[in-house]
């Protein structure tokens, strides 16, 4: 049996004005377990707190009930008081007789009556309280960044700058991501490579950063501060540490007809390749699907020309296990497939391209060396039609496309249109738009310049059909302002395809038990206040994996994610919330209901041996809660039919006791 002390606060007249505090402390004296009950003007004052400390000592109290303001106000205060008195801080319960009683009721009698009932409920609960100690877990002071685009690069650099080790896992042979494929960046028009490649070099040279390129994460175990991650290094058939990136192999490779993914298939590369000149690591990779040596053992030219002897046709995939304290997801985005939108004839004509392809067409390192030429016949296009919102903002009942706005298209289309008019003033440039969305610093000014200074023709309307005929693309479109249907003979049509999260994100989310929305974007822990954290502790979000983002936004989120990681890694130990779920293994039957509802993946299963009454043993699968991961919502406790799963601090019998006290 507890020895409970009850302390009723007047809160000046805030409580005492509507509640007869004397009557309350008197009434609660008779409750089971109560050995001391008093009232005082301001319980939260130093004098009030001392009163509690003295009473604990004098009456050997094991539990405290404070009838006062909301626990959201002073629960923490009174827990500290209890600790100062030598009690476990979780032996305190608050009866909220201010916000939920004296302030909302006018009549002294009703107020007093209710305050007594609330006090009784708190006493009933504290009688069942048990001392709780928050768990502690050590922190591995290293971070993993998954994805080596601008988001991952910036996050890694910022974490490394704070002195922590970081590994980047990138599935492509080089880091750089989408930004490396871009030509210029809006709204300042600086060249993407000029601002990105120095950062890539910084990454390569930073002693704290390791790059696992051409690699992927295949397994994640553990929890915040203590992740065990398996990384698969795909065989690139080139010894990374020996290859100098001289490119002799690339030049000599006889298999030169492999579509070049870096240029989105608009030109070819060889079977052994370095994606682009500034690749990091600058190491060759052999494409096993194209290499004759690997396919049928006939060739071996690259090994012959490699002065460093870096080629290794027998290389195997390698699995590496590493420990991390924090994981940052930076898996980025891709344009959606234009398969389902063939009213724009993307599959029928080479001259209908996506905006990302347009980037490559205008990039000096691209397939046309920066000259804007039609992919079909390499002629200069004179009329270009840009179509916005292709596959964005679609209603779900339209059964194709994405429901969200892809956010970046308005600005890059304005950029494309402006740059085209700037470099080739003889071209006519139309942009078909539904809305032009430019809510960024200097964004609208940029768009207006495209219209006013560069003479880009913005048409409010949409393209309905593109008909390739002869050398022309016949564009049928609507101009809603002029209330006309337009027919334009275009040379090039550029589609602003919606963007979607990278396909690797979904299986990764499963491994991380990080939640995703229906579009496969990672969900943030709180949409406003915790935008760079996943609800799963220790997992952070950087860049477009969380939602469509432009470069400035991505970089600032990357920095924010890094600072959250640094905050975590700076700790030696993590102190948990003691009010977590725990499973009574004797009662658990291992049915998995709790695991399915846990938003944090805090529940796992272990095979446990039980001694049976007849002295035999039986192995049973039982749930086990990781207190470092559990956040204490209690969802699992209701999913559990047997009540084997319970929540500390808000246990079934405690809440039931409160119900009984109120209803009695």
């Amino acid at each position, binding site marked *: 049996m507890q020895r409970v002390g009850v302390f009723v606060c007047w809160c000046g007249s805030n409580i005492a004005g509507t509640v007869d505090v004397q009557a309350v402390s008197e009434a609660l004296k008779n409750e089971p377990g109560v050995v001391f009950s008093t009232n005082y003007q301001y319980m939260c004052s130093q004098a009030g707190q001392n009163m509690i400390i003295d009473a604990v000592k004098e009456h050997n109290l094991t539990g405290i009930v404070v009838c006062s303001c909301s626990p959201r106000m002073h629960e923490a205060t009174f827990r500290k008081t209890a600790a100062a008195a030598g009690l476990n801080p979780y032996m305190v319960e608050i009866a909220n007789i201010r916000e939920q009683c004296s302030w909302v009721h006018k009549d002294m009698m009703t107020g007093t009556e209710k305050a007594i009932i609330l006090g009784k409920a708190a006493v009933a609960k504290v009688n069942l309280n048990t001392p709780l100690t928050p768990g502690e877990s050590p922190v591995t002071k290293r971070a993993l960044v998954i994805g080596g685009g601008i988001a991952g690069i910036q996050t890694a650099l910022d974490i490394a700058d704070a002195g922590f080790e970081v590994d980047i896992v990138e599935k492509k042979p080089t880091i750089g991501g989408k930004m490396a494929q871009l030509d210029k960046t809006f709204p300042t028009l600086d060249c993407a490579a000029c601002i990105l490649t120095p950062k890539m070099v910084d990454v390569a040279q930073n002693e704290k950063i390791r790059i696992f390129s051409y690699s992927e994460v295949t397994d994640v175990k553990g929890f915040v501060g203590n992740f065990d991650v398996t990384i698969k290094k795909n065989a690139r058939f080139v010894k990374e540490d020996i290859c100098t990136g001289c490119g002799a192999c690339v030049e000599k490779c006889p298999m030169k007809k492999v579509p070049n993914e870096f240029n989105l298939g608009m030109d070819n590369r060889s079977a052994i390749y370095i994606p682009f000149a500034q690749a990091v690591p600058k190491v060759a990779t052999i494409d096993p699907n194209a290499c004759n040596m690997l396919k049928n053992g006939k060739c071996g030219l690259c090994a012959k020309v490699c002065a460093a002897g870096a080629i290794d046709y027998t290389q195997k995939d390698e699995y590496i296990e590493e420990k991390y304290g924090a994981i940052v997801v930076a898996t980025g985005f891709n344009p959606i497939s234009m*398969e*389902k*939108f*063939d*009213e724009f*004839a993307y*599959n*029928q004509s080479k001259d209908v391209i996506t905006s990302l392809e347009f980037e490559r067409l205008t990039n000096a390192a691209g397939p046309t060396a920066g000259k804007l030429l039609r992919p079909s016949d390499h002629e200069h296009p004179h009329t270009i039609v840009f179509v916005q919102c292709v596959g964005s903002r679609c209603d779900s009942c339209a*059964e194709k496309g994405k429901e969200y706005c892809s956010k970046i298209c308005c600005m890059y289309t304005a950029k494309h249109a402006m740059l085209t008019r700037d470099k080739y003033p003889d071209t006519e440039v139309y942009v078909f738009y539904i809305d032009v969305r430019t809510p960024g610093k200097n964004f609208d000014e940029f768009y207006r310049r495209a219209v006013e200074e560069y003479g880009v023709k913005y048409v409010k309307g949409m393209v309905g*059909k*593109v*008909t*390739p*005929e*002869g050398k022309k693309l*016949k564009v049928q479109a609507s101009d809603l302002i002029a209330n006309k249907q337009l027919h334009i003979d275009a040379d090039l049509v550029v589609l602003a395809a919606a963007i979607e999260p990278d396909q690797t994100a979904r299986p990764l989310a499963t491994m991380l038990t990080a939640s995703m929305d229906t579009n496969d974007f990672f969900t943030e822990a709180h949409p406003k206040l915790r935008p760079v954290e996943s609800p799963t502790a220790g997992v952070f979000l950087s860049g477009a994996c969380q939602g469509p983002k432009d470069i400035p936004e991505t970089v600032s989120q990357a920095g924010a994610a890094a600072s959250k990681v640094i905050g975590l890694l700076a700790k030696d130990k993590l102190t948990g919330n003691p009010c977590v779920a725990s499973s009574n293994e004797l009662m658990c039957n291992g049915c998995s209901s709790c695991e399915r509802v846990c938003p944090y993946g805090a529940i796992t299963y272990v095979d446990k041996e039980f001694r049976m009454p007849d002295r035999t043993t039986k192995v049973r699968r039982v749930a086990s809660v990781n207190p470092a991961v559990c956040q204490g919502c209690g969802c699992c406790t209701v999913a559990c039919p047997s009540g084997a799963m319970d929540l500390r601090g808000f246990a079934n019998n405690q809440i039931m006791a409160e119900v009984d006290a109120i209803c009695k």
Partner: protein
Amino acid sequence: MKVSYFPGCTLKNKAKDLDTYAYKSAEALGVTLEEIENWQCCGGVFTTAKNEVATKLSSVRALKEAAEKEQPLVTVCSACHNVIKQTNHAMQNEKEFADKVNRYMANETPYAGEAEVVHYLEMLRDMVGFDAVKEKVVNALTGKKIAAYYGCLLLRPSKVMQMDDAENPTIMEDLIAALGATPVVYAKRNECCGGYIAMESPELAKKNSNEVVENAKAAGAEMIITACPLCRYNLMKNGTDIPVVYFTELLAEALGVKEDTNA
């Protein structure tokens, strides 16, 4: 393999070719078309209004008969296919409409869209298989550049029709290839020829049809095939110097059964 067959009014009349070649070809492919007894005209167009009942009853009758025979209902004419398929979809998904129809027809066992509506082209693709068609070809049409004209009704609304990608269909091109010819892909193959507007505004039908034919020709077509008598009429009437034939005729020719038909 036996299937129920709904020919439609035009196929018994102005478009006999479409019908007879369909029969012969099916036979050659081992499919027996069993004509629905006492079928009635489908009405030519599906009225999308939810409170329109009477004009859809003839389709429901045909559907019900096929369902009772537990056979798929095969159609050839694009318009009939569109009307019957959309009606079936409405019977499956619009309860109020279906209830009205069943009450009106005094159906003892209510019809709820159990029948499967299959276009002849789908039958070739999904039930016979284009590979099997290819094997049966005796007069391969090698070297012929043929453009498929889908028009609107075969493909749209794709949510209901479910035949093929509405913007980039391949079913007819695959058939052309199976018959040994070279399919010609052109963008206007799924744009409207003008349809029944030919009655009232022949100019509009002419303009639309012309654009289709010109686009096909520009892509190198020497012949156009279609599944719709009205499409064929519009394309032919509005001045084309390349032949427009029903796909069944082409099929019969390749399968070597065209001549028996004429005989």
